[in-house]
């Protein structure tokens, strides 16, 4: 007869073994089938469950608030990111002789930044070349204002 009990394959109906009822009786022997609940147990347990539901709801709300606060700190509002300083426009200077436009660069706003008082910052439109500050190297012609 095959040794089903030690087979690796699970038997088809293992609970039909002859000892099942006896084993069940032995396992269940010696104890009451039921225990009457103590007085007031139902209300006490209901209150305990209600407190846990409240704590869980409060915990969920607190966690949500914490997430919103962290998001506000990490990703600020768009308006704050766009705050960049704007260079104010200076008023036109009042002079008796018409000055060439280049001499009063600050009057006409231009989209490109232009050097004003800093002779050491040459640009493509600057009438001054490197070394022109010394005055004697390249000649005075380069100092003439260009129309």
């Amino acid at each position: 007869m095959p040794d089903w009990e030690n087979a690796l394959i699970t038997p088809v109906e293992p609970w039909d073994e002859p000892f099942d009822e006896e084993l069940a009786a032995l396992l269940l022997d010696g104890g009451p089938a039921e225990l009457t609940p103590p007085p007031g147990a139902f209300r006490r347990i209901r209150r305990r469950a209600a407190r846990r539901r409240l704590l869980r709801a409060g915990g969920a709300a607190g966690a949500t608030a914490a997430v919103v606060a962290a998001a506000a700190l990490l990703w600020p509002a768009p308006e704050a990111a766009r705050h960049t300083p704007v260079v104010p426009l200076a008023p036109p200077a009042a002079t008796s002789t018409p000055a060439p436009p280049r001499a009063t660069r600050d009057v006409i706003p231009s989209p490109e930044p232009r050097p004003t008082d800093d002779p050491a910052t040459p640009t493509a439109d600057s009438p001054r070349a490197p070394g022109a500050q010394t005055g004697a190297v390249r000649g005075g012609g380069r100092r003439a204002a260009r129309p």
Partner: protein
Amino acid sequence: MSPSKDRAAAELFAALYPGLAGWCRRLVDDDGTAHEIASEAFARLWAHWSAVEEPRGFVYVTAANLVRDHWRKLDRERRAVRRAGTEAALARQQAGAESSVPVRLLVQSLPERLRTAVLLYYYADLPIREIAVLTKRKEGTIRADLHAAREYLRAGLGERLDHTR
């Protein structure tokens, strides 16, 4: 809580609590612990009631986990007592205990997977299909676990089983 829900909870409690507490009493040492475990199982059920589909299975699985935790705590305490050198007192205590205690200790000594199946099948009288749903395992696996558990218990209860035939 609405009156209808309260009424439904009261009916469920009246129907399930006595059997659950009696089931727990077979597995623990005293009525007080049995009531504590049964009460805690119901408290957890009602704290998550809207999400529970099968209340009876839920409270029995919850109680089985609580019984397991209770046994682990007792094991830790027994080990501590042994280390303190009171083995003789323990032997006297165990010798005078009820005849069902060794059976319970055998069940307690099962691996957790097998113990859960035995508790729910024999003690809680749940069908295998429901045990499979509650433990999220296949019915064939539950049957195999019950078979293995029966072999283990039969080996431990050999004389008693022969006596009952």
